[in-house]
Structures are given as C-alpha cells and as structure tokens.
C-alpha cells in the first residue's frame, strides 16, 4: 500500500512537474503567469487523442505529434495574444488578463466544435502492473514519472549548455541587454513558447491516458501553478521538486486522510508558501552589484 502510494504520488507529481515547467519557463522570461497554459495542455491532449483514435498511431507517435501540435499552438498563442502587448511594453497584469481570456476562449472553442463529451484514449499499456515487495505498481505510473524526469533533465541540459539556452537565461536576467547581444527577442520568445508548449503536449497526453480528455481538463494546471510556486517560479529544478512534493502530499492525504481534504491541503500549501516563502524552495533572487 505504502509503495503503491509513493509511485502514484510520483507519477502525479511528475505530470504536475511537466506542467509547472511550462509555467516557469514563460514566467521567468516574460514575468507573467500564463494562465492559457492549461488550455494548451488540453488542446495537446485532443491532438494526441485524434492521432490515437483517427490514425491509430502508437504511443510514441501520439506523444511526438502532441508535443509538436501543442508547441505550435503555444507559439501561435503568443504571436496572436501577447506579442502586440509586449511590443507596447504593457504591464504584466495585462498579459495575464489576456492569458485568462485565451483560456476561456480556447475552452469554449472546443465546446463549440468538438463538444463537451469525455473521451478516453485507447488502452496503450492495458492495466499492466508489476509486483514490487508485495504491492502492485502500475507501469503507466512508473513510466510517466521516469519520462517526466528524463524530459525535464533534457530541458535542463538544453538551458545550461546550448547557445539558445544560455540566451534564454540571459533574457531572464535582462531582456534589453540580451537583445543588445544580437538576440532577436521575438524569435527567442517563440522558442520559449515552443518549449513550454512541447511540455504541455507531454502533460496533456499523460493526463488524457491516465484520466480522460474533456474541455476543462486544463484547469488541473491550478495544481501545476501551486507546484511552480512551491518550487520557486522561474526555477526548473524548483518546478520538478514542487511538482513531486505536491503529488506526494496529495496522494498521501487522499490515501491516509481523506480524498475530500486533498485540495484543502494543496491550496493551504500554496498560501503558506506565498506568505512565508514567496520565492519558493529554489526561487531566483539575485541582485546586481552596483
């Protein structure tokens, strides 16, 4: 029972972390909470669903297609809804309001075109379980956790090692100076949204496979937001740690206390962090030396 709970917690935490990474990336570069991220996750899940049910593709291709689809949607989202605000140097509050508008718009677009039905992915993995030390562990859960870990590690390497990655981190420090190094900011921001969208695609498919696909499924990103705040908005290792902590807390509360109280605990955690440690566990606060 205990081990099963741990694995479930890690898998949910891994999905939270995948979503939190997208939040954190955008937040750290543009300094606003992109509440349309949930809608991009939802659309990513629908893209995956279409590939799985209409084209009967296997899991790997579904995942790849969803990553590409959600990535492109995220870039379009930025070009259509945020870039003109950025160009006019609007305060980040405006960007956040625009993001909320996008979320509502995209959700209703799905209602109006695809409908409000709940869809399930075909069973890619059956309900395979392995028995570890007397408890049965779902392969899907273990796989989701490992994949999330791998993907976030890959992103970490990209951000640390590549020329574009270093430019993203430089932009986080100082956008204007970044452009004075010869970086085309519009292109850099498009890359950031492509990455965030790609992670949204992965999260969407995992969520859809584990649960169901429906227009408001993106609101689970509330939890990703909590995870990002716990870890420290803008920090990648923080997003991972925050996601895993939240996933574990939720699963343990559901299992050992009461599933009704799960969200009470989650949001209490959010408030506690905002009050006592607004920078999160690994939040960035560095001062320039004058």
């Amino acid at each position, binding site marked *: 029972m205990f081990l099963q709970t741990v694995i479930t917690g890690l898998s949910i935490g891994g999905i939270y972390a995948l979503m939190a990474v997208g939040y954190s990336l955008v937040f750290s570069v543009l300094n606003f909470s992109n509440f349309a991220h949930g809608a991009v996750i939802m659309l990513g899940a629908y893209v995956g669903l279409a590939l799985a049910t209409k084209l009967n593709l296997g899991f790997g291709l579904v995942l790849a297609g969803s990553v590409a689809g959600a990535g492109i949607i995220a870039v379009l989202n930025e070009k259509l809804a945020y870039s003109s605000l950025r160009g006019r140097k609007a305060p980040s509050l405006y960007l956040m309001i625009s993001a909320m508008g996008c979320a509502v718009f995209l959700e209703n677009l799905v209602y109006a075109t695809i409908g409000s039905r709940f869809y399930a992915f075909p069973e890619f993995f059956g309900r395979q379980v392995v028995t570890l030390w007397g408890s049965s562990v779902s392969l899907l859960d273990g796989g989701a956790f490992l994949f999330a870990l791998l993907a976030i590690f890959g992103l970490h390497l990209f951000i640390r090692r590549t020329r574009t990655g270093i430019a993203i981190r430089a932009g986080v420090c100082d956008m204007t*100076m*970044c452009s004075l190094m010869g970086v*085309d900011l519009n292109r850099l921001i498009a890359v950031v949204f492509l990455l965030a969208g790609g992670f949204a695609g992965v999260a969407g498919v995992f969520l859809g496979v584990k649960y169901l696909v429906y227009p408001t499924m993106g609101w689970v990103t509330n939890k990703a937001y909590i995870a990002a705040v716990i870890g420290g908005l803008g920090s990648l290792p923080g997003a991972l740690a925050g996601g895993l902590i939240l996933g574990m807390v939720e699963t343990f509360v559901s299992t050992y206390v009461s599933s009704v109280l799960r969200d009470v605990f989650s949001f209490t955690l959010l408030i506690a962090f905002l009050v006592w440690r607004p920078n999160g566990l690994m939040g960035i606060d560095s001062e*320039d030396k004058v």
Partner: protein
Amino acid sequence: MKALLVEDLHVHYGTIHAVQGVSFPVEEGEIVSIVGSNGAGKSTIMWTLAGVVPPSGGRVAIKGSPMPRKPHEVVALGLALVPERRRLFSALTVRENLLMGAYRRAGGDEIEAAMERCFELFPILRERLSQRSGTLSGGEQQMLAISRALMSGPEILLLDEPTLGLAPILVEAVMETVARIRDEGVTVLMVEQNATQALEISDRGYILEAGVFVKSGPGPDLARDPEIRRAYLGG
C-alpha cells in the same frame, strides 16, 4: 567614411524632451566623448544609438546606412554598447556572459580567439571564468562588461560611464584600455560625468546640457578650458 553620423536627433520620453536636436559625426578610428551633468541626456543618446530607445526626430546613419529599428539589427551592423551600471547577466557565469557577447559569431574557434583577446586586456577574467558575474568586484564587472561588448568584434563601441563607481586608480586603467581598444581599430563613443580623463584621450568632445550641445572641440582643449573645468570637471 563616418562610423556614425547623427543629425538633429530628438528623443522624447512621453512629454519630456530629453534630447533636443543634437548633431555630431564620429569618424572611423576616433574617440569621441560626450560630457555633461546628471540628467543632461547622455545615456538617452547612447540607448537611442543602440536601437533601444526610439528617436522622435532626426537621422542616424551607421557606416553610411540608416539605423535599423531593433537592437539586434543595430548590433549586426557592428555596434556594441557597454551600458551605464554595466548590466551584466548576473546569474550567468563570466564565461556565459562572454559567450552571450559572441552570440552573433558562428564558429567556436572564432569565439575562443575573441576570448583570448579579452584576456590580453583583462588577464584577471581568465581566473574568474566559472564564477557568477554577480559576485565579481565592481572593477572586475566593468572589465567583463567591456569584454562582453568586444566579444562581438564591434567596429563601433559605445561606452556609457565606464568609470562610474570605480576607484581613481581603476579609472586610469579603464582609460588606458579604451585608448588601446581604439589603437586596435575600434571607433569609440564615450559618455562621462567626471570627464577630465575621458576628454584627455578624446579626439573630440561635446558638452551636453539639458539635451543640447553647448560646446565642442578637441578633447584635451576642453579638458583645459577653465569655464568647463569649473562647471563639469570639479575644478
């Protein structure tokens, strides 16, 4: 050919008329200094020439072609800015800051060569390569800021208050470096508040007051002008 030609430049911040019609040329291989008190509009001119602040009137030509609108396009023409207060990428290491400076360069060899050139000017940076730039001392930060700008291999270098907050001995070292950079073929436009030393090494100097030039001439002459000494150079 003129490296820079500024004609009747105006800049507004909302209703504030910060730069009110300044004109000046910068010839290739020159050091030109703009001197003036706080708020005279010196930094505004620099940010405008770098493409960050849009001008509200006038013309700027860089190496004969009209100035583009975006900073990264200005950089592509061979111009680099060392801004006031340095504005390093403080969370990045010294090495990463230098790599960002070379963002437009293609090859690894080219980047290594540019880095070696920076170490010739500032040997201390080699020892600091993996240190976060925010943890450097003020003087080291200034060295890194200048190096970061040089990494792109600029033909025109804009220096905004390169000696701000530095000890007198470092001020002299920075000026020597600026002269050396010019001797290596880079055109320099410099802005300074405490400017005797800057004017001494300048081919020409301009005195900026409330957005307009009130005096200009060869740098050393201005540095010795009693009226200017009283007003701007601290006696």
